[in-house]
């Protein structure tokens, strides 16, 4: 078998270059374009993701600061409320005590007054009784028995007054 070189060699060069041009037109260009698009897309997406993450971290930090602030405020409010409540409780207790004191004083005063009234009434009735007894004594002319009876009646009447 001997090697034969002929015009096929030129034809094959032409064929190859023709194929190169045609493939470049119909296949390589669109495929490379897609490849480039994807690279660009991936780069963009990565950049976007990084931006978004930075932004998210910033927002997170803000939120955390705000949360901390809110918690502190809430704590302060609770403390204030607790203090106010305690004060109010003390006030109420003091008022209650004062009220009780006042009521007690009133009651004691009432009792005193009633007692005085009763004593005054008693004194009045004893006086009138004495007058009544005196009148009877004078009316019936006193003998010993009568006197005795009289005294007994008076004591009875006094006993009835009770």
């Amino acid at each position, binding site marked *: 078998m001997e090697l034969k070189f*002929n015009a*096929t060699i030129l034809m094959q060069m032409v064929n190859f270059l*023709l*194929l190169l041009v045609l493939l470049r037109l119909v296949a390589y260009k669109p495929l490379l*374009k897609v*490849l480039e698009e994807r690279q660009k897309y991936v780069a963009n997406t990565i950049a976007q993701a990084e931006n978004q993450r930075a932004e998210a971290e910033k927002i997170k930090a803000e939120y955390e600061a705000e949360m901390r602030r809110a918690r502190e405020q809430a704590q302060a409010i609770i403390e204030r409320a607790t203090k106010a409540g305690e004060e109010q409780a003390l006030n109420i207790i003091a008022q209650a005590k004062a009220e009780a004191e006042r009521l007690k004083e009133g009651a004691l005063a009432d009792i005193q007054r009633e007692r005085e009234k009763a004593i005054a009434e008693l004194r009045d009735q004893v006086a009138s009784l004495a007058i009544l007894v005196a009148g009877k004594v004078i009316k019936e002319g006193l003998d010993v028995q009568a006197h005795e009876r009289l005294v007994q009646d008076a004591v009875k009447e006094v006993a009835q007054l009770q």
Partner: protein
Amino acid sequence: MQPVREEVIGGLQRFRRLIPIGLVLVALGLLVAGCGEGFDLEHTEHQLNFWGVPHEPWRIGPGPFWELNPNTLIWTWVAMGISLLLGIVAARGANMRRPTKLQSMFEMIFEWLRGLINEVMDPKKGAGIFLLIVTYFYFILICNLMGVVPTLEAPTADNNTTFGFALITFFMIYIWGIKYKGMKYFKHYIEPVPVFLPITIIEDLAKPLTLAFRLFGNMKGKHIMTVALLGLITGTMYWAGGFLASVVWLAFCIFISFIQAFVFAMLSIAYISMAVAEEH
């Protein structure tokens, strides 16, 4: 009953061990028969010419040079058609978000060859030869793989094809050398002393020669081996045509096809990068 049965089973088991030996003997017998019948490459090739490709060269001018090999050219056009078809199908389904299988394959080849080029030369200079290298790899691969398909022939099994491709690389070396270095490019022939001129010229000529012959030798050898295997056993391709050996060989051919396409592309990159490199 029982001993007899065991004896039969034992006999079968002994027989089973003999099966591979028997098969090898049968294969050897067929081989000997084939060899005895005589092995004729031309004859088998003629029988394999299923598509009726003309055997006589086409004459386009006077003299033995102005002839075209119809076999090579027809299969080259078929290979071009397949390459273009695959390219068009891949490009049509091209999608940025969900690449099709063909598209991914092309993208893999692109990325891989781009990586190879950028490894050995300035990416700016390499961008110009990128598509040439991709086409080398892609088209030579298609051509080589066509040799694996029964009744088809690899266009690269013709020395005209491989020399045509190698000549393109040969010219590209000069074009790229002059493009990036100007006339200073030719200075490296006489450096460090003019005595080296014949050696550097031989070196330059050896580049396309080795490129072309490496590919041609591999593919022609593959072709001859395939045809020989088909023709060897029993002497005819129509029955028991060296099937097992042929299958093993064809599987290996796929591997060779890839390797040779890669080597051609890789060496072209290397030669062109040597021409444009800043330091020799």
